């Protein structure tokens, strides 16, 4: 079998995606495609589109589901592990090292100032994501349904203190079980 060589190829391909892929999982898909379809021909364009569509039917980060699946297809269990580790491990180590050094010197005034200054930046990034998700939600469900669902969910989660897992779980169940008609259904938690 060509497994051993294939696993190294998988490792380096997804290592590159992990190192150059900024902006979270969904933003990395074009890079995955460049390695998997264009460079190594592990999948055809259509297969890649199918894998992406299948990945999107499941929850969780897309940038680990795709490497895991492609790694498994090309190099079996070892290939799967190699691909996933290559894409996630380098930057996990970087996070632990950098934040470890940072929190060791938290008592120093200017280090603390640096920590405080990134909070507004994260606020803006989160606001961008909020807008992005509302915008997509508006496109799919319309303005009113999105707003009502958001308000009902906010009341359940933050006012009544229900765990978000129950609210989202109930919505997922409703989406799955309701006949494929076009009617909307609220969070029937």
């Amino acid at each position: 079998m060509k497994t051993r060589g294939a696993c190294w190829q998988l490792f380096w391909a997804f290592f590159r995606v992990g190192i150059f892929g900024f902006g979270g999982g969904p933003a990395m898909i074009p890079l995955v495609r460049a390695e998997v379809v264009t460079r190594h021909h592990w999948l055809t364009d259509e297969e890649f589109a199918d894998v992406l569509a299948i990945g999107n039917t499941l929850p969780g980060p897309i940038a680990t589901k795709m490497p895991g699946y492609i790694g498994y297809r090309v190099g079996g269990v070892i290939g799967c592990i190699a691909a996933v580790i290559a894409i996630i491990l380098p930057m996990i180590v970087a996070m632990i090292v950098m934040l470890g050094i940072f929190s060791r010197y938290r008592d120093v005034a200017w280090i603390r100032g640096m920590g405080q200054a990134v909070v507004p930046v994260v606020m803006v990034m989160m606001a961008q994501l909020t807008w992005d998700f509302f915008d997509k939600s508006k496109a799919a469900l319309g303005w009113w349904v999105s707003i009502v669902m958001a308000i009902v969910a906010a009341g359940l989660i933050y006012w009544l203190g229900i765990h978000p897992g129950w609210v989202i779980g109930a919505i997922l169940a409703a989406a799955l079980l309701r006949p494929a008609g076009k009617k909307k259904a609220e969070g029937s938690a």
Partner: protein
Amino acid sequence: MIYWELFLAFFIPNIIGYGGGPAIIPLIEAEVVGRYDWMTAQTFAETLALGNALPSPIATKMAGYVGYEVAGIGGAFIAVAATVIPTLLLMLGALGLLYRHRDSPRVKRMSQWVRPVIAMMMAWLTLGFMLESLNTSGALHTAIIGIVAAIALIRFNTHPAFVVIGALIYGGLIIP
């Protein structure tokens, strides 16, 4: 016990979070800051800032670091495994089934219907970061950094890493 809690704290957000890694952030915050109190809003924001400045998927970076903070290397391993393995096994195991239903309206509806809830939780988290910053840095610094960051990110599409570095320089020189 701590390993089990870590597993749950990352398993639940990843098994209900449709919309890729970013959708999972507010769900993880609800566990890590809200439920288990492992991190303050401040340290969570710092983690997220560095996470956004570095490449590779955000969900696994957060899991790895939070897991390490809470319970060392073993904790990092558990948190990352809880993030990656369950949905990956589902994908490998139920591939035929998923393949048949990849264009199903019901499946599309699942991610569509979850989106407003995720958006609302993201808005809530945005508000939390704002209150945190007003509290620790004051209104003036919050406004200056927030507005400059918004212009850089939205208007000029500046890479998040540069915006974070800019904020670090401002924070190191001006806030103390």
